Structure formats: structure tokens, C-alpha cells
């Protein structure tokens, strides 16, 4: 039985091809030079990439407080996204949504769709496109900004399903689902146990059996992000022939979605139960022999985007705490002048910059399909350990006020701790990395 994710393979090509047409430069893409900066900053779906745009660069994909080598288009896009969320999703709005049954802001979702949030991993012929042509890198910019705003809603899982369909879908599946996802019409999520803490095929408990030309699903998977509002589920199940990915309408007979309570108040999860859920064989995504590769690719993408999001959340939390350490006075001086606190803030700054660097490396590795399992496990094992250290110490440095419900700090703390446990715990990623390093007998790919 498959015990863990497989070893890295060389030369399997780019799992998420750049979505704009034309000027691929192979393994060593060069920085785009000819792209026009978009004047308005508002991107409409299908036109996000200027027709004369060159390929995006390989520079650091996520910027943040200290800036990074983003292209002019990416910089403008980042600022536009930031401004949009500052206006439409301030923390007060995020708090209002705590008690909302859907848990996210439908108007903001639709505007996000206009900004291209769901089209970046969708090929142009299906209504997609991204600002630089490097969709994963551009989406990581969005993820980072969403993290800074602890933004609620199924942006990440919808994009994972879009990437899976774009990667492995038949022409019919692509035509059916991709335009609807890219436009924001369809919300999708990935019902797969790898979204939990274990990062192991063993955790997959949904069974798929073939009966008279149809596929029947049985079993339970949890947690599934935003399943309560999803129209479309990508279900990863196990079958006699190995793993299988199936596209299932959330409204299909036998699908039950049980909302869960969650540590992260700005994000919803559910348990999804499948009882004799019957879908046609045409709902199976991709070639059965490559299903595990598809799962790995989606998983690595999820980890890279989650890493970018966590960095955004930690960045905002740290900035908030740094400001507090300068403003708050005790014993006649700013508390940040005390070395006992200053030295901890210095350590946090190091962890934050390191997290930013490794998240950017993971995003680039996934974009290019180059050693992405290693890069994402390095990033998640590091960020999963250090972002919580930052969050916990940020609370401590705030003192009593940081323990109050009214202070926003706990929203960020909750997101960071929640992300630590999802898409593989740091320990699970270390196990995967040990396997990739050829350590021990468990390291090889099980047959």
C-alpha cells in the first residue's frame, strides 16, 4: 500500500505551463521586457495578459514589505489587489463574516474574479490568463495579499481544482469547467485527505469502485475547505488500480456536507461524506496511470500557495507588533528599546525574511516544475515551524491586550496555526524530505 508521497522525478516537464501564448524560452526564461504596464490596474477576465507580453521572470515571486524583483505589471497588480482588499475587506468586514452562514463575501468574490483571481491557472482559450504569464507566481502574489488580510473564502481550493482540470482534464472537461471557474461562477474545492496534516496517501479513505461503466464513491474526507459553498468537488479516492481523481457535483445524490467548527474564524471547513455517490466514468480526471502524479502536482501547488499566504499573514502580524513595540511606553521608554524584546524582534525578522525567501523559492519551483516536492517540503517544514513562533511571540509582546477578542491579533494567529496543520504538518513534510534525501528504508516509492 502506498505509504507516502513519491520521490522526486526528473524531467517530467512543467506541470503548470505558463498560460499566455507564444514566447516560451525553455528552462531558462528571461525577464519580460515588452509588456505594457496596464494603466487602470483593473484586469478583466481573458484580457489580463497584454498580447505582446513576454514570459514572466524567474525572480522572487512574492514581494512584501521590503520589495522584490517584481515586474512592473506584477507590482501594479499587487498594489491593485492590496488596495481592493483594503477597501472591500478590512478586518471589520472579516469579523462580520464570522457569523455569516456562507462565511465569505460574495460581492468581494465576484470583484476578485474580475481581478483575475480564478483565471491565473486557466489557459487563455478557456478564459484564463495571468498578468505576467507565470500564473503560479502571480497567484502567489494574490495569496500573500489574502494572507495579509486574513481574507475568507475559497480562493485557494478553487484554484487548485482549476489547475488540476487544466493539467489533466479531457478537452470536454476543460471546456465544461474551466470557463465557469475562471469567471467566478463556479466555486470548487479539493476533497482530499492530503489537505490534512499527514501528507500521506495512507490517509485517503474515500473508495472508488467501478460498476457498470460508472464510478461509485464511498467514504469520508475532512477537513475540506469551503465545501459548504462549493459547486464542484475534485475528489481524490483510492481504487483497485491506485489513486483516482473524480470531478463530482456537490449536489450529487449521496454527498453530505457537514460544516465543522474551526480555529481559523475567517475560514470554513467541512466534512464531506460520500454514500454510494454514482458518477459517469467521464467524470474521472486524467489518465489513471498518472493520477498519483496529478495528486502530487496539486499538493505541491497547494503547499506553495499556502506558504505565500502564511508569509503574508505573518508579515502583517509582525508589522503590527513592531509598531506596537515602538509606540508602547513602559518604565519611561518605548518597550522596543529593551534588548530583551528587541532581540526577539530581530529573531522574528530573520525568520520572516527566511520564510519569504523559501516561499518564493517554492513558488518558482512549482511554476517551473523543477524539484517542486523538495522545494515545497523545505518551505512548509520551515514556515510551519517558524510562522507559529512569530505569531506566539507577537501575542506575548503585546501583553494583555493581545489576549482580548477585540484586538485583531488572534485572527492572524489563528490563520497561521491553522495553516501549520493543513496540507501536511511540518513533521510530515520532514518525513517526505527525508525520503527525497534517500534516508532510511521508508524513503523509496512504494510499489
Amino acid at each position: 500500500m502506498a505509504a507516502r508521497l513519491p520521490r522526486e522525478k526528473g524531467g517530467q516537464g512543467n506541470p503548470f505551463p505558463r498560460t499566455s501564448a507564444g514566447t516560451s524560452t525553455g528552462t531558462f526564461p528571461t525577464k519580460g521586457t515588452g509588456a505594457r504596464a496596464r494603466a487602470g490596474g483593473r484586469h478583466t477576465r481573458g484580457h489580463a495578459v497584454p498580447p505582446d507580453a513576454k514570459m514572466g521572470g524567474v525572480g522572487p515571486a512574492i514581494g512584501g514589505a521590503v520589495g522584490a524583483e517584481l515586474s512592473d505589471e506584477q507590482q501594479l497588480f499587487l498594489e491593485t489587489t492590496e488596495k481592493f482588499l483594503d477597501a472591500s475587506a478590512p478586518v471589520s468586514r472579516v469579523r462580520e463574516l464570522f457569523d455569516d452562514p456562507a462565511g465569505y463575501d460574495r460581492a468581494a468574490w465576484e470583484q476578485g474574479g474580475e481581478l483575475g483571481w480564478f483565471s491565473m491557472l486557466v489557459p487563455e482559450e478557456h478564459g484564463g490568463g495571468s498578468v505576467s504569464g507565470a500564473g503560479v507566481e502571480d497567484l502567489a502574489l494574490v495569496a500573500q495579499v489574502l494572507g495579509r488580510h486574513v481574507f475568507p473564502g475559497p480562493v485557494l481550493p478553487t484554484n487548485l481544482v482549476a489547475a488540476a482540470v487544466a493539467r489533466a482534464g479531457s478537452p470536454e472537461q476543460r471546456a465544461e469547467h474551466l470557463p465557469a471557474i475562471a469567471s467566478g461562477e463556479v466555486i470548487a474545492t479539493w476533497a482530499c485527505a492530503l489537505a490534512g496534516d499527514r501528507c500521506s496517501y495512507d490517509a485517503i479513505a474515500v473508495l472508488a469502485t467501478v460498476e457498470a461503466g460508472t464510478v461509485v464513491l464511498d467514504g469520508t474526507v475532512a477537513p475540506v475547505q469551503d465545501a459548504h459553498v462549493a459547486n464542484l468537488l475534485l475528489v481524490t479516492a483510492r481504487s483497485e488500480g491506485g489513486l483516482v481523481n473524480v470531478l463530482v457535483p456537490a449536489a450529487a445524490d449521496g454527498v453530505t456536507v457537514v460544516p465543522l467548527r474551526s480555529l481559523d474564524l475567517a475560514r470554513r471547513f467541512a466534512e464531506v461524506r460520500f454514500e454510494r455517490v454514482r458518477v459517469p466514468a467521464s467524470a474521472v480526471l486524467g489518465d489513471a496511470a498518472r493520477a498519483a502524479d496529478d495528486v502530487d502536482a496539486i499538493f505541491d501547488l497547494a503547499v506553495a500557495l499556502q506558504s505565500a499566504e502564511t508569509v503574508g499573514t505573518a508579515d502583517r502580524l509582525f508589522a503590527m507588533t513592531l509598531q506596537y513595540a515602538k509606540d508602547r511606553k513602559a518604565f519611561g521608554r518605548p518597550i522596543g528599546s529593551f534588548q530583551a524584546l528587541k532581540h526577539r524582534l530581530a529573531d522574528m525578522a530573520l525568520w520572516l525574511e527566511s520564510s519569504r525567501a523559501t516561499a518564493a523559492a517554492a513558488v518558482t519551483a512549482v511554476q517551473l516544475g523543477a524539484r517542486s516536492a523538495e522545494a515545497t517540503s523545505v518551505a512548509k517544514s520551515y514556515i510551519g515551524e517558524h510562522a507559529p513562533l512569530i505569531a506566539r511571540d507577537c501575542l506575548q509582546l503585546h501583553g494583555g491586550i493581545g489576549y482580548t477578542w477585540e484586538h485583531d491579533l488572534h485572527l492572524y494567529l489563528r490563520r497561521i496555526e491553522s495553516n501549520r496543520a493543513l496540507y501536511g504538518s511540518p513533521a510530515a513534510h520532514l518525513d517526505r524530505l527525508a525520503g527525497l534525501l534517500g534516508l532510511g528504508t521508508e524513503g523509496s516509492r512504494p510499489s
Partner: protein
Amino acid sequence: MSDDVVIEPADLHEYRLRARAWLQENMTLLRRRDDGTYEDPDGSDPRPERVAHARELQRTLFEGGFAGITYPAEYGGQGLSLDHERVFLEESAGYDMPTQVFAVSLNILGPTLLAFGNHQQKAEHVPRMLAGEELWLQFLSEPSGGSDLAGLLTRATRDGDTYILNGQKIWSTGAQHSDFAMCPARTRWDVPKHKGISVFIIDLSWPGIEIRPIRQINGGAEFCEEFLTDVVVPAANLVGEENEGWRVARGLLQIEHEWVGRSGGGQRTHAGVDDLVALARRRGLEDDPGVRRKIAAMYAAQMVHAQASVRVSNAIAAGRMDHGYGGALKLSSANLAQRRSELGLELAGSDGVAWHEGDTSASSWSHQYLSSRSSSIAGGTNEVQRNNVGERALGLPREPTFDRDVPFNELLRG
């Protein structure tokens, strides 16, 4: 040397291939040990023959156009980027290189002279440094204080066209093999401590300079102490303006911190964990889940440090990040060196504390462990780095001080 998938711009990759071909043609490969690591020709205490050989190797690099990769062409360098330098270092791993012997000269003193020296000083010394003819170091710490550098007591007294230097310096790396030092000394005592310092170029062959190696806990003696007695220094050797030397010394430290952070300070750095994996196998620990995770975490920490080094160094070079972040890299580098050697010693277990004569694969772990104790002290302690990051990079206020606006000769000292 690596066949790994590389993700880099085409021009950088062309440079990599050119460097690879040149190295194959002109340099000698090191012997590889059974555990996959390379023999270390430098050790922690290079002998005079080794230094002489390194000078020849540096000359070869210079003639081949691979010395001073980031130095301006005007002073004999190649005028390329930090990325080119990193690529060359990656490609040269496994070759017998002068990198470690010339590390301090070319990564700290050369850049400091380029930043603060006058044209004549640069034209006279920089090409000779690059060609392996001049080894340099800095005389910073004194027995009375290391972290409080501006509190230095070495005295420089103006005498016509010269200055007369008297005092004592300590913890200078490789002074016994070096030719020149950059030496801050106090030229005024009646002003606050930062305002009375001047920096001089000193030829170590001059009369009145006595150099004594200091034996360290790892048995080596790379650090030295120096006694300066009536050393006569021409006024032309003043770097920058008189009494404005703190700016030079601080600039030197920033250059040092950022370089140590990004490179590990010229020590042979470990790109992978092959040696730790080999050790775990030798000790029968390779299937222990805790050991597997510790080695994987070490690998991740090394990768993240390398990723952060590239990102932060480039951002500092481009002016997008404050120099104070160089202190964060140095902190990271020190933590990494210590954590790695602690893990090695832990995995080595009893073999790491008692071994047969000549069993270097066992003895190396205690040696690495002892050597790494210096990484959080040398070149600025971790505590000083945290102050640098906190105050310069993050803009936090300083602690109240008792010495800032007080003339140096009225200060409490000792």
C-alpha cells in the same frame, strides 16, 4: 560541479558553463572522502606552505579572469554581480581553491578599501590583493573590549607627516600570514568615543609590530594578538578623514556581517547533508524517525539559509533593504553552523567522544563542534547582530547609553 536542475537566467548559466570549463582546465580537484565530503586543505589553521600555495592559486585565478568577480574593472576586477560570484563559488566546490586563505582580504578589506579609500590607495593595493600578492586583515578588537568597538584604546599621535601608533589588538584572523591590516586607532580623547577614531593602513612588516598566535579550544591558532609599539605610519595611509574613522569601521563591519551571513565566512560550507546521512548509516540510525526528521530539518535549514542569503544580499546590493539585515544573515549563518555541528556530535554518539587514533570521520565532529563555538562570537556576537537588526533594520530605539555624548577621557572604563 552539480548536475542539479538549475533555474537561472541564460547569461548566468553561460557564465556557469564557462567557469566550469575553466576550472576543469586550470585547477586541481580535491580528494573525496568515503562519506562524500572533500578533504580540506586549509583546516582551521593554515600553515605557511599552504598560504604560499594559496597565493599561487590566487594568481592563477587573477590571470584567468576569475579574481575579484564583483570588483570594478578599474581596479583589476571583473565588474560582475553577486550572482556571478555565487555561481563561481558553486562551480569551484571540490577544487583546491585559495578562497579560504583570501576570504578576509577579498570579501572584507578589499570592499572596504573600495568604499572608503582614495584612488591612490585603491590603485596601489586592490590589484595586488586580487593577484594574490597582498593578504589583508582588520585589527578591530582589543583586550579591553570586542563588542564595544568604538571604545578602543589604541592611540595614534600625529607627528609631522606621520602618525605614531601604540596599543594592543586581538582576535585578528590569520595575522601571522598577512601583509597589511586596516587598523582603527584613537586620534582624539577629548570628544565622545565615536568622534575621535581614525583608520590606518598598516604594513605588518614595519618595525614595532609583534604578532602572537592564540591557541583556541579546537587546538588551532588562526586568531592572533598584536602588540603595536611606536609604529610609524605615513599620513598618506589614513583611510578617509582624520577623526571620521568610525564611519569606515562601521562600514567595514556591515560589509563583514553581510558577507559572513551569505557565505558562512569563507569556511567550506555544506550544501547538502551527505556527511550526516553517512554518519547516521554508520551509527545504524538511518531508520530512526527522530533522526530522519532532524537530518531533514537540517537540510531544510541549509536550503532556507541559502535562499534567504541570495534574496537579502541582492536586496541590500540593490538598495531595497537596509544594511542591518546583513546582521540577520550573519545570525542565521552562526545558528546554522552551531546547530549542524551539534547534530553531528549528537549522531556520532560515543564515537564522537572517544575514537581510534587517525579515525578522522569520528574526530571531525568534535572538531566541528568546538570550531563552531566561535561563529556566534567572531566578527560581532549574536547579541550585537540582534542589536544591529533591531536598531538599523527595524528602526527600534537604542537602549539608553552612558557614553554617547561624554568625552572619551571622562568615561568609566575597564
